[in-house]
């Protein structure tokens, strides 16, 4: 398959960026989107040009490293898949594909398609954990958790922190990310001790990082590669109201 790629190039955080057009030829339909970029980069290196910088690691949709806005969609057109899981067969042969980095003030562009997502790390540091007291690990069956509750906590825990929710949201809101992190712990017994402070601190940090407010457009849910439901945002709102008002 052949494609024309319009890719955002930016030398550094401070530099002015812009689109550059590249033609790529003979791409196998089963190639992933990142492999398409690998082919292009190999070609650029051969020509002595600067390869395109993009984040990637596991290439199997579980690490949350990759993330590109492909034709206006976070991670591309195929639903429930990270950029590394997008297959070129989902595109038309000869299609012009526009590739952009996540665009949000709290995610500054470092180079080309790579953005700084440490804002998410700081939100996690604010409360996205369970303080572990030393001692023997309890038996799994010593803490009974009903299956539906465990399932819902697991659905929230599926968040890979890629930032597609922020990239898709018109306000660049991080509510789905924070909701997933708060929700997974709010549902489980281990999360109860720090439940109140967690919701308070994580939302305060989210606001401090400069993410926008949630407009409930649900674009985040539609673009999430892990299909995390906005029901978790409703839970986050309840947690926050409880923490602040009750």
């Amino acid at each position: 398959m052949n494609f024309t790629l319009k890719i955002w190039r930016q030398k550094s955080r401070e530099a002015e960026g812009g689109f550059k057009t590249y033609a790529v030829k003979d791409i196998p339909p089963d190639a992933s989107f990142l492999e398409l970029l690998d082919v292009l980069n190999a070609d650029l290196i051969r020509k002595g040009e600067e390869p395109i910088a993009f984040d990637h690691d596991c290439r199997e949709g579980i690490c949350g490293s990759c993330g590109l806005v492909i034709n206006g969609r976070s991670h591309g057109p195929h639903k429930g898949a990270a950029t590394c899981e997008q297959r070129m067969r989902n595109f038309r042969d000869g299609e012009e594909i526009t590739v952009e980095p996540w665009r949000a003030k709290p995610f500054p562009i470092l180079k080309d398609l790579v953005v700084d997502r440490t804002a998410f790390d700081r939100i996690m540091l604010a409360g996205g954990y369970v303080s572990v007291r030393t001692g023997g690990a309890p038996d799994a069956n010593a803490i009974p958790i009903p299956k539906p509750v465990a399932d819902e906590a697991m659905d929230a825990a599926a968040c890979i922190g890629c930032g597609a929710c922020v990239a898709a949201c018109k306000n660049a809101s991080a509510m789905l990310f924070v909701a997933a992190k708060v929700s997974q712990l709010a549902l489980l017994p281990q999360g109860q001790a720090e439940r109140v402070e967690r919701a308070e601190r994580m939302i305060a940090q989210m606001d401090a990082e400069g993410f926008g407010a949630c407009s409930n457009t649900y674009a985040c849910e539609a673009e999430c590669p892990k299909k995390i439901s906005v029901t978790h945002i409703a839970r986050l709102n309840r947690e926050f109201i409880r923490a602040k008002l009750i």
Partner: protein
Amino acid sequence: MNRLTSFLTSSVGRKLLMGLTGFFLGSFLIVHLTINLFLFASDEGRTFDTYSEFMASHPLIRPLEILLFAGFLLHMVVGIWLWWTNRDVRRERYAVSGASENSALSSRIMFVTGTIVLVFLVVHINTFFIQSRFFSTGKTMYELVSETFANPWGDAFYLAALVFLGYHLKHGVQSAFQTFGLRVHSYRTLIDWLAVIFWLLIPVAFASMPLYFLWAHLTGGH
């Protein structure tokens, strides 16, 4: 900053204020519609005028009126505040927008539909409330309504405004439930149907009034 202030200035707290004031304004729509339905009583507007007189003169209504204006003001101020902070978060726009594929238009243009409704409200309040309360028009409220709605251009303006109001509420009602944390799986259908009352039935009921008086005017009924 105490707990309440830090709550109300947070992104979630401001959204909660939007939802609460939105619900308050929505409850007023029901009261407004109920009284307006007396326009259809076949008594040349006697019942409607009695209620209008009561609403204009009863001492208990005045504080409610002030509360209602405060509700509008708060909804607008917090709405503008949210819009202002949200628009600053993505200075560099995407070259290609996928918004139409991942979200409903009504959810993305709340500021626009809200502003249009505000423009309508200014005209609407001037036409009826201010004219009858502060200027002696010498007309009963029923006469004022029937004269205003006899003008097809005025009616077109009202109908257009109601479309935007409906569109604003199409997103607003369910969005408020989501902000309150109540839009969970088991309530979702109930909320969606409740929202239909607000975004469809109420605007349609309001729309029937200018149409009724226009029809009456054209057929010589009034």
